């Protein structure tokens, strides 16, 4: 199976370690990961902010960059959702027949990282070791968008040494919402405050999630308040064999 990594522009620029972690885990499981250098961005920010025509070149670029792979894996639930749900919609609305066909064929091959592991590869124990107290925040796109359900937790439970604690009000939004955090900054901050209170109450050392965007928002707040609680993408915990919490 030819697996291609869609790193996402945000992780590419801000969180390269997450991409490396995905590669590490998949290679440990005996797979080869390829990285098509023509890839850039799925256009989620444009789409969610109302700039649909501006997203179209990105839809086109995505379809082209990933045309030749059996599975496309991405460590971002929201970007996976964008490609699977909204690329077909944009192709329908603005694209030509060729693009519509390419998107219809390609979009279902996109898997969020935990989906690839659990549904496609059929693994929950990836041989990780991470001796820390961890809580998991299901981002809205993981929970209600992709409906990842128990998959991330099943993977985390199989990590050796981990002390997995449940987050109170687990299904409530952290308040990030992309450009929402800028357009409605005060509300975003109020929601962040409640999320942080819940994170702190768990006594966790690390809060993890399937999306670095929400984590940057939560982690940014936790850092400003000097809570000493770190944030880590789920993939980085699954890649860990050293037990080194950053």
């Amino acid at each position, binding site marked *: 199976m030819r697996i291609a990594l869609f790193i996402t522009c945000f992780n590419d620029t801000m969180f*390269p370690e997450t991409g490396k972690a995905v590669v590490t885990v998949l290679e440990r499981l005996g797979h080869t990961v390829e990285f098509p250098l023509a890839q850039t961005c799925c256009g989620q920010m444009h789409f969610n902010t109302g700039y649909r025509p501006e997203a179209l070149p990105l839809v086109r670029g995505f379809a082209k960059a990933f045309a030749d792979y059996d599975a496309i894996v991405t460590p971002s639930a929201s970007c996976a959702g964008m490609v699977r749900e909204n690329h077909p919609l944009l192709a329908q609305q603005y694209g030509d027949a060729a693009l519509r066909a390419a998107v219809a064929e390609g979009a279902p091959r996109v898997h969020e990282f935990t989906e690839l592991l659990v549904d496609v590869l059929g693994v929950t124990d990836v041989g990780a070791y991470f001796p820390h107290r961890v809580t998991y925040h299901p981002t809205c796109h993981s929970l209600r968008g992709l409906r990842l359900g128990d998959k991330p937790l099943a993977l985390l439970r199989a990590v050796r040494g981990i002390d997995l604690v449940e987050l109170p009000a687990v299904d409530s939004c952290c308040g990030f919402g992309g450009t929402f955090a800028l357009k409605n900054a005060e509300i975003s901050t109020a929601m962040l405050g409640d999320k942080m209170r819940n994170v702190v109450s768990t006594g966790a050392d690390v809060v993890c999630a399937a999306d670095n965007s929400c984590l940057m928002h939560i982690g940014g707040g936790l850092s400003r308040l000097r809570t000493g609680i770190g944030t880590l993408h789920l993939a980085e915990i699954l890649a860990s064999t050293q037990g080194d919490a950053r």
Partner: protein
Amino acid sequence: MSPDSGTNVVWLGSPGFPEAAHTALGDPQLRRNLRKATTTIRDKRLAVTGELDDWEQLREAGAATKRHTLRHLDRYLLRLEDSVTKAGGVVHWAADAAGANRIVTELVRATSAHEVVKVKSMATQEIGLNEALEQAGIRAYETDLAELIVQLGDDRPSHILVPAIHRNRAEIREIFQREMGAWGRPAPDGLTDEPRALAEAARLHLRDKFLRAKVAVSGANFAIAETGTVGVVESEGNGRMCLTLPETLITVMGIEKVLPLWQDLEVFLQLLPRSSTGERMNPYTSTWRGVTPGDGPQAFHLVLLDNGRTATLADTVGRQALACIRCSACLNVCPVYERTGGHAYGSVYPGPIGAILTPQLVGVEHAATLPFASTLCGACYDACPVKINIPEVLTHLRAEVVEAKRAKRRVPGAEALAMKAATAVLASPRRLSVAQKAAALGGRLVSCKDVIGPLPGPLHAWTDARDTPAPPTESFRAWWQRTHPTGADS
């Protein structure tokens, strides 16, 4: 859409959502009231929807019925007119708020009454009926407890089901003591803020009005095309009083409330109370057909209101909003509503449903901040008993807001320029890689110990409350190219 259609849907002079939310966020008492009210009702709803094995099928059935009805709305409305007329009622068609207000005012005048009692109704709020009646010298008395609190407090509703959700007991007691006398029977001496005492004060105050009223005005939760049956679903029984005691009953109903068959109520009378109050069944369900000699009102008028609805129907994505049964579940689960309350939405329709319905009824340019008043978290979609995909409609309307702005200004705004620039960079791997190197350098310049603290300028909205990691010196693609120099993809 006629020029004045929907003008009462939004409150004139309301600021945009972010500014309006500022006031609410600064009020700790309001935030406590809201949090308590919304979390309580949330848990109740989850309990009563979770106990049904076929809840998902019920939702699907409700959504399918609404989809079908909206697609053939013209047919069902004509059938409704026919069956209501046959049952002895009179049907009136109102294209907009002004038209509906005119019709109701004339109907009340014809009875020579100077006051009406009202059943809680979103449609009459939407058209600003009470104000229109007042201008014609007719006093409208709200009889729903929460509406009464809003009316006496000269306030605005902030929730579809519980319009006074932003008030606590102490505030309600104070409003009753101060205002009841001016509207009729004063509050009893020594009124406490016990819920029972407050309800009793309202009961005594309202009883006079029920017994005296010659005309009642109501909304409707549904009307059945097949039979001409109109129905109101409520909790307090005040509606039942209004619907049965007066001589004349005038019902104002949005055209989207029609249902094809009596049998359809099987689905909707399960969906509505469970989603709305978290009850298995609501205490009072009143249904009536036209007039019955010697029993109840002897004159019945049904005013069918468009007010922007046919325009909404023309939009194949946006029309989902017309399936709404006004249960308010989406408000109760919304994390944004929980923090801001209803007034910030500047409309009689607050919360997620307001964010998609209001801009469609009044035109996106008149409610341009509402489609952005959401994180797209999707909790509303999961809760909605008729499966309205609210996030989908929100992004659809966001695109319409952007297009409307584009059409209006010759020079693109700052956001439009930024988005265009982002596409230019992101459409090319080479330009992205150059930008990443610049970001890493820029990040190092403003960061302290790998963390970026508060920044001036437009980014302060982000950095005021959050630290940001400085971009790493090496992007993922740079790392990949360095470590996989001869790979098939390099």
